[in-house]
C-alpha cells in the first residue's frame, strides 16, 4: 500500500492479493468530514503505523523478488531514479532531472547531490551503474532484466550524471528506471545479490526509512531516516505485521492491533459501515491498477473459433460479476488498461450481456442443444475446465458466477482451483489448460509487449493464450518506439479495438482498492495514484499518538 517504484509495476501475474495502492480519477474517501478541520493541525513527529499484510517478505532487493509483500517493504528503504507522482506522471526521485535526446535514444539523468546511504556513504552515479550491470548480469535471478537489456550503452561521466543509450527509442525506458538503486559498496562483492545479507537480513538504501528488524512470519519493522533527502518522515516507525488470514486481520484492525489494511469488498460494505468503525477509521476507495479476465487457450478446438469467444462474451453478465464479487466496488473491464487514464479507450466494440445472442452465435458455430441441456457439436459436448488459482476468494466467486452464466446458454464449465506454484508450472510450462481466470497488474506505462506480442508465446512467457495478430505486433512496436504521447495513444487505442474484436480474453472487471486507515493519521489525500504517494508526510498530532515508547 505504499508508493510503488515504477518498475515494480512491471506486468506481474497477480495472484490477486488484495490490491496495492493505485488510483484513478473518481477516487472517494469516506468519513472525510473531519479531514478538513484536521488539515489545520500542525504536523508532529512520532508514533508508529502498523500495516497488515497477507504475505511475508521473501527478500528486500526488488530486483530479485517478485511478490508484493517484498516490494512493499523495499519501497521504504530504497529509491529509484524516478517515480510516479500523485497524477501518475513520472517525477524525479534520486534523479533531480533528466533529458531525453531528440532522437529518443539517449536519456541523461542528473542525480541529486548530498544523498547518503543509510550507512553514511554518499550516493553517486557509480551506484546506478552498478545497479544496471547487476540487473543484466545472468547470475542475478531477476524477472526484470528485459527492459534493461534494451540499453546499448550506459555511462556515468561524473558522480552525479548517468547517461543511458538505447538501440532504438524505448518509451518504457524512463519508467524502468524506477527500479530500486542498489549500493555498490555493499553489494559489489556478491556474485548473486539474492544471497547477500542486504536481501536476506538487513537492507541498506537511501530511502525514507531504515531497516530495524525482520522476524520472519511475524513482522517487519522500519524507523524514520532523519537524513532522508526529502526530509525526515513524521511517522517514526513503520511496522508491517504478517497476518495471512484476512478475517483475522480485520479483527486485529478493529481491536487496534493493526492501523491500516486493504479491505475486501465484503469487509468494506458490511463490516466497515458501523458507527463504531467509523469513529476510529477512515475508508478510502479508488480504482485499482489491476483487472481480472477470462483467458482462452486460442489453440483449443472450441475457442479457436472467434464466434464462440464472442458468444461467451455475450453470455457473461459483467454487471452481476461486479455486484456479486465486488459488491459494486469496481467496474466492468473492456480492455487491459485502467479506466480514466490517458491511454484507456472507452469506445471499443462491445459484446453486452445477451444470452439469446450468445445462443444464436453458438448455433452458427455448429453448437446445438443436446438432450441434457448441454450444447453439442458432432457428438462432442461443450464442456471445458477453467483453471484459477487457489486461495483467492474473488476468483473463486468469479468462477462460480461464470459457471452459472455459461450453463444458462448450455455450456458446461468445470472449475478447477490449482495452487499457485503448480498453476504457473502447469500452464506456463505445459499449456495444459482450456481457459483460465486470472488477473494482471496494469503498469502506468502502457507498453504491454510481453502479454500481446506474438514473439512472447514461448514456454514460460506471458502470452500464454497464444495471441498472434500482425497488426497488434506492429502497433506494439510503434507504441514503444516513440516518446510522443499522441502517437502512442493512437497505437494503443487501436490495439484495444483489436483486442475487443478478437477477444483473446473476456475482460471481466477492474476492482477498487479499499484501504482503511486509523483516523489518527492526518495528511492522507487520495489522488489518481492512490493514497500512499505522500506517506512520508502523514503524521499523528501529539495528543493522539499511540505508540510513544519508541525513540523519536
Amino acid at each position, binding site marked *: 500500500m505504499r508508493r510503488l517504484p515504477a518498475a515494480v509495476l512491471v506486468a506481474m501475474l497477480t495472484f490477486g492479493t488484495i490490491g496495492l495502492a493505485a488510483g484513478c480519477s473518481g477516487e472517494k474517501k469516506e468519513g472525510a468530514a473531519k479531514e478538513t478541520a484536521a488539515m489545520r493541525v500542525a504536523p508532529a513527529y512520532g508514533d508508529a503505523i502498523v500495516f497488515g499484510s497477507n504475505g511475508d517478505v521473501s527478500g528486500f532487493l526488488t530486483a530479485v523478488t*517478485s511478490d508484493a509483500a517484498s516490494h512493499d517493504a523495499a519501497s521504504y528503504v530504497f529509491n529509484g531514479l524516478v517515480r510516479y507522482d500523485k497524477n501518475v506522471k513520472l517525477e524525479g526521485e534520486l534523479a533531480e532531472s533528466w533529458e531525453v535526446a531528440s532522437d529518443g535514444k539517449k536519456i541523461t539523468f542528473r542525480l541529486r547531490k548530498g544523498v547518503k546511504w543509510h550507512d553514511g556513504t554518499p550516493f553517486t552515479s557509480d551506484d546506478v551503474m552498478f545497479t544496471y550491470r547487476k540487473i543484466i548480469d545472468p547470475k542475478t535471478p531477476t524477472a526484470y532484466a528485459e527492459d534493461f537489456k534494451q540499453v546499448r550503452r550506459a555511462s556515468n561521466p561524473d558522480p552525479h550524471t548517468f547517461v543511458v543509450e538505447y538501440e532504438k527509442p524505448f518509451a518504457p525506458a524512463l519508467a524502468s528506471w524506477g527500479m530500486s538503486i542498489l549500493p555498490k559498496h555493499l553489494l559489489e562483492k556478491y556474485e548473486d545479490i539474492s544471497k547477500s545479507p542486504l536481501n536476506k537480513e538487513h537492507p541498506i538504501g537511501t530511502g525514507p526509512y531504515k531497516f530495524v528488524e525482520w522476524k*520472519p512470519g511475524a513482522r517487519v519493522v522500519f524507523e524514520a531516516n532523519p537524513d532522508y533527502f526529502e526530509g525526515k518522515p513524521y511517522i517514526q516507525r513503520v511496522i508491517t505485521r504478517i497476518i495471512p488470514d484476512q478475517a483475522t486481520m480485520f479483527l486485529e484492525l478493529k*481491536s487496534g*492491533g493493526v492501523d491500516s489494511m486493504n479491505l475486501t469488498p465484503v469487509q468494506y460494505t458490511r463490516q466497515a459501515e458501523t458507527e463504531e468503525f467509523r469513529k476510529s477509521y477512515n475508508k478510502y476507495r479508488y480504482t485499482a491498477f489491476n483487472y481480472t479476465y477470462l483467458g482462452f487457450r486460442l489453440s483449443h478446438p472450441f475457442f479457436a473459433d472467434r464466434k464462440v469467444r464472442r458468444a461467451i462474451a455475450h453470455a457473461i453478465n459483467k454487471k452481476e460479476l461486479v455486484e456479486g464479487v465486488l459488491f459494486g466496488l469496481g467496474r466492468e473491464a473492456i480492455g487491459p488498461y485502467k479506466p480514466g487514464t490517458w491511454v484507456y479507450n472507452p469506445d471499443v466494440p462491445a459484446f453486452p450481456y445477451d444470452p439469446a445472442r450468445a445462443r444464436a452465435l453458438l448455433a452458427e458455430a455448429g453448437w446445438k442443444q443436446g438432450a441434457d441441456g448441454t450444447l453439442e457439436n458432432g457428438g462432442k459436448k461443450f464442456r471445458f475446465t477453467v483453471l484459477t488459482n487457489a486461495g483467492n476468494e474473488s476468483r473463486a466467486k468469479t468462477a462460480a458466477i461464470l459457471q452459472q452464466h455459461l450453463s444458462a446458454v448450455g455450456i458446461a464449465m468445470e472449475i478447477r482451483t490449482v495452487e499457485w506454484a503448480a498453476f*504457473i508450472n502447469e500452464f506456463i510450462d505445459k499449456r495444459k489448460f482450456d481457459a483460465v481466470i486470472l488477473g494482471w497488474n496494469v503498469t502506468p506505462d502502457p507498453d504491454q509487449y510481453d502479454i500481446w506480442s506474438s514473439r512472447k508465446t514461448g514456454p514460460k512467457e506471458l502470452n500464454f493464450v497464444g495471441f498472434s495478430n500482425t497488426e497488434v505486433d506492429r502497433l506494439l512496436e510503434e507504441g514503444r518506439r516513440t516518446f510522443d504521447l499522441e502517437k502512442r495513444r493512437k497505437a494503443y487505442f487501436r490495439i484495444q479495438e483489436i483486442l475487443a474484436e478478437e477477444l483473446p480474453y473476456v475482460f471481466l472487471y477492474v476492482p477498487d482498492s479499499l484501504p482503511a486507515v486509523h483516523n489518527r493519521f492526518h495528511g492522507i489525500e487520495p489522488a489518481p495514484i492512490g493514497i500512499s504517494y505522500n506517506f512520508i508526510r502523514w503524521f499523528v498530532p501529539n495528543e493522539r499518538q499511540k505508540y510513544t515508547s519508541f525513540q523519536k
Partner: protein
Amino acid sequence: MLRYVVRRLLLTIPLLVGISLISFFVMNMAPGGPIGAAADMNPKATAEVRERLKAYYGLDQPLHVQYGRWLRRMATLDFGPSFSPDGRQVADKIRERIPVTLAINLLSMGIILLVAIPIGIYSAVRKDSWFDRISTVTVFTGFAIPTFWLALLLMMLFGVKLGWLPISGLVSLEHDSLSLAGKAWDRAQHLLLPVLLAGFGGLAGFSRYMRSNMLEVIRQDYIATAKAKGLTERLVVFRHAVRNALLPVITILGLSVPDLLGGSVIFETIFAIPGMGQLFYQGVMSRDYPLIMGILVIGSFLTLIGNLLADVGYALADPRIRTG
C-alpha cells in the same frame, strides 16, 4: 527395566528406516517427482532453479541411489532449500518455528493433566452421579466438536466481543518495551486461547481414560480389602486407586503427540501464531515439497519420541515388565 528400555530404543532404528521409506514414497507421489512444481512466480528463474534442484536431488540417478541420498539427508536433517520465494533452508525455517509449537503443546499437555485427572477421578468415584453424567456429556461433546469451529467461536467471544484476549500472534507490538513481568503476561494472554483449545480435545480423551482406569482399579479386590480394613474412602481413593490409575499418564501423553501436532496446524493458522503448524499449512498451500517433507519427517520423529516415552511409561506402570 533397563533391558526393556534398551530393547525399545533399538526398535526405534527399524522404525526410522521405515519412516524414511514411506516418506520417500510419499515424496515421489507428486506428478513430476519432487520438483514437479519447482517454480517461482518468476518464469525467468525457473529454468535455473530446476537445473539446480535436479542436481541437488540427483533425479537423474536410479531410484535406489535417490533413496540413499534421501536417507542420508534425513539423518542429518538436511531437507534442502524451501520452494518458497525466500529459498531458505527448510531446516532453518523449522528450527525457528518449532519452539513455539512445542511450548504450546507442552502447555496444553499440562492443562490436560491438571483438568482431566480430577474430572476423571471424581467421575469414577461418583459414578452415575450428576457430575458424572454432565461430564460424560461434555466429554462426548468435546470428542465431537470440530475444534476449529470452537476456536472461531471463542476467538469471536473473547477476542472481539469481550475484548479480553488478543486474537492473533504471539506477542503484542509493544512487547519489547514491557517489563519482564509484562512480557510474561503478554505472552500468556496470547497463548491462552490456543493452549486451551489444543488441550480441549485431549481433555476429553484423557478424562475418559482416567475415569475408566479408576473404575478398573476401584473394582479390584484389594480396594475392597483396604476398605474392609476400615480406611476412609478418601484415603483409599487417594493412596491406592489414584496412584495406580495415574501411572499410565506418561503413556497417554506420549501417545497424544500426533494429535496435538495435527491440531497445531489448525490453531496456529487460525490464531496467526508463527509455529511449525502454520508453516506446514503454508507449505501445503504453496506445494512447497521440501518443506512439507521436512515437517512430516520432524513430526514423525516427535511422534516416535512420544511413542517411546509412552512405552517406557507403560513399562513403568506395569510391574510385569518392570522386573522382567
